[in-house]
């Protein structure tokens, strides 16, 4: 089963994304901020990261930059999710190291399909 890490400070959103991704056949872990996420990534391989922007301690941008500069970890595709629908927010996500951007609330079909497309590779 392919593993996805959901990084979001809102428990409700984590639960929502977990439901969608588990339904789509993924194994799901959660982290509540960038720092916790990095800890998890260092100890387990994830094939996809679903990253919120606004989080305490370490936000999504800082987290992605941190991860993208760590040569030792698997550089999983990352979807950044945010309530902002503007182009500059999307650009900021790519700038930080996200490979795709989805606007919250994510549509179940969109998130599960994107997750499957992004992880279509064999591990």
């Amino acid at each position, binding site marked *: 089963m392919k593993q996805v890490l959901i990084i979001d400070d809102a428990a409700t959103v984590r639960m929502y994304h977990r439901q969608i991704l588990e339904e789509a056949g993924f194994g799901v872990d959660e982290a509540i901020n960038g720092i916790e996420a990095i800890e998890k990534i260092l100890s387990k391989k994830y094939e996809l990261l679903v990253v919120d922007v606004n989080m305490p301690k370490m936000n999504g941008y800082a987290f992605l930059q941190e991860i*993208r500069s760590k040569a030792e970890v698997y*550089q999983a*595709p990352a979807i950044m999710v945010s309530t902002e629908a503007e182009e500059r927010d999307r650009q900021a996500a790519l700038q930080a190291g996200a*490979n795709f951007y989805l606007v*919250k609330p994510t549509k*179940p079909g969109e998130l599960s399909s994107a997750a499957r497309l992004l992880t279509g*590779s064999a591990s």
Partner: protein
Amino acid sequence: MNPLLQQFLSEGRDFIEQIGQKLLILEETPNNEAVVGELFRFVHTLKGNSGLFDLPILTRVVHAAEDLLDRVRDHELTVTSELTDDLLSAMDFVVQLLDEIEDGGTIPDTYLPDATKLVDRLRSLLPERDVHEDEEGAEETMPAPTDWSWLSRLTEEQRVQALAQTPADQAIWALFYLPEPQCFFKGEDPLLLLKHVPGLAGFSIRAAQPWSPLDELDIYTANLAIDALSMADRAELDEHLRYVPEQIAVYQLPRFALAVPTGDASEVPGVYADFFDRARDCLGRSDMDGLRVAVDAMLDMINPTLWMASALRWCLCLQDMGFDTSVLAFHLEATADHKIPDWFLFNRTQSASLNAPDKQAAPIAVEDPKLPAGTLSDMELALWDRIFETQRQFLAIPSASAQWGGRLASVYNTLTGLLRAKGDVQALAALEDAAETSEQEKSFAPLLEFLDGYGPIAVCNDEPLAIVAEETVVPMVVELAAERQIRQDRRAGEGAIESTRRAAEVSADKAVRTLKVPQEKVDRLMDLIGEMVVAKNALPYLAARAEDVFGSRELGREIKSQYAIINRIAEEMQDGIMQVRMLPVDAIFQRFPRLVRDVAKQLGKKVRLVIEGEDTEADKNIIESLGDPMIHILRNSLDHGIEMPEVRAADGKAEEGRLSVRASQEGDRVLIEIEDDGKGIDPAVIKRKAFEKGLIDEQRLDTISDADAVQLVFAAGFSTAETVSNLSGRGVGMDVVRSSLEKVGGQVRLTSEKGKGTKIILSLPLSMSVSNVMMVDIGGQNFGVPIDVVVETVRIKQSDIHIFKQRRTAVLRGRIVPLYSTDELLASHNPPKPNADGEYAVLVARVHGETVGIVVDGFAQTIDVILKPLEGALAGLAGFAGSALLGDGSVLLVLNIKELI
């Protein structure tokens, strides 16, 4: 309830709690950037969460608050106490909405006008710049009501006409108009306004609130709720409604939502079975003419006033209007079930299915990598293109060199996923080459070249081709991927392994986390351990029986030794469970800053609240019982204690009053001190008032000490306020505070120094689960008396009892003690009997600071019991504190002496 919604509610409440606290901090220190950031994040997250559900009213209010805080964050708006007020009341409103959702699963439309008002208010605080833009945003998220039953109150003709007259690309508007109750006095005429609504296709009027009884009915107050349908242009509609925008909400209605069958619902079930089979068959074959013929034939046969006839006419109408088969099928199935079609549900599922992954069409193997994905649905293809295109943009963004390698690898991994998902395994080799070259040349150019060169190849719909591709290419890809992984691992080196291990250790340490357990589960444990304690108490009886009745001393001893073990375990268990129920007093205290702030503001006073010891713990029930009394005490201090700033200044005190709340633990009790530096209590005033109200007699008036006099504020029927203010003088005084604390075994004391301030000390047990009671014999039956009221037990000779002021009294240790006999307290007909020496058993108790004697028949031992409040029909018996089960299975009633006297 849906667990996600439950999660949302509980997280939402946490957020609002936090938001409230942060707002208060911000009011004090408006430039605290860190707090602004946190505050914004909480509100933002709350909004994001609410967006997951169909809760437009809530989302809108939170969104408005978020917009304001966004401006605060951007330094375009400073936090004033007015802004704080508005944001706090918005959060209060949100709490109301959360309560509604918790109770009913949804937010009733009746909240709409208030929400609109609140949002308008919040938006009016926004600096000019973006008001217009934001208004447009608000219009998009205009919440839709959930109750559409009014549509069926419009006639079928009205609705058919409305549908027929509206071109498919034009909207139908639903108006929800709630005229202000006082609108008649403002020259508004709701009916006239309504009748002139452009494009009006029909309306329905109902009472906004249930009508009050006829003799109380105020005919000048509008109690109308109006639903109306309009086909006009939106701009025209807004123009017409411009004077009452806050009273009207406008929604766009899906056109097919008008198809609501009405009429006589009496049917013989099953009669139409053949018809529906035929109709389904026609729909399945898209044979529209066939369907029409079938419906027409059916309509000819049945009475046109029937509900079914109406439904069939709608079927024809929908067909005429050119709706597709999914709409017709939905309508037909609802009709077959004799149900009104839930068009709003249909509308939601329609839009959802556009986004939902089509499981049939998307056989992307998640589990088995050898299965090449072939066909993607249209939706997925579109998404594929978007992701693909995003990688090109991603590579075009200049990036820091530290992240360069990671970014390249992430694009490589992403593209690998995309290609595999599409089943285009041939391209993987080219991708691998491009990535390799990119890495060697330290440039994204080769990878970009690959992206540019990657034509939009046809998706392999051709099955044989896909199979060939799988057989020939997949093994190579796996090899390549494996090789790449090895290379990555090698590059990572030893350091990575070390850090991995460290991370694993850290996360193992953190594995012990807080558990969130529903309260009922803990309560159930508490109940069970209570039963366990009682059950275990049966063992000593059993031991005694083994000895006395069955004559086996040895067995009796064994039972006793086993009892000692069980007893110890049960006590530890009880202790452990009680620990779980312990909450910090902060659960109550955290409400105070807001309360003190609001009340002080309302009174025009300046007050600084200091809270100490908020982490002191006590049983949940004790904590909860503290809330109302403490609020009452704080209000009293603010209202009557702390003076107006001018008065304080004149008295040489700081203008800002100080109110401190301190909690601490002392032995098995929690002490809470509430102290103000206000004007204090004048004992002379208290004495006079108490005397005027007949609470003390003349003799006592002369002898009572000042310290005792101030305690009189706790007497029932005492209120020192000269005028009744809306804050503390609500007809309930400190006596209510005292009695509600006493209910949980608490005590309250007051000390005050005139001109300096007042201190109130509450003392509460840490836990209320185990009570120590003394058993007394009254008329041959055992009753319990809580040990904390018992002062002593004495025997008094009949001759030492005197009648004084129509009451039997006795002199005990130099004091006159009034005696009450149990037959008068319990209205029994068995007056207590003296013993052989002519002595009465008297239980001396301290009640309301007075010493009284209760004459009983005899005393028994004291025991620990689990006191349970009386329930059901007995709950009203204030004379009993509750009941307890004894070890022999009998029930002990525990007296509430305070209430009895």
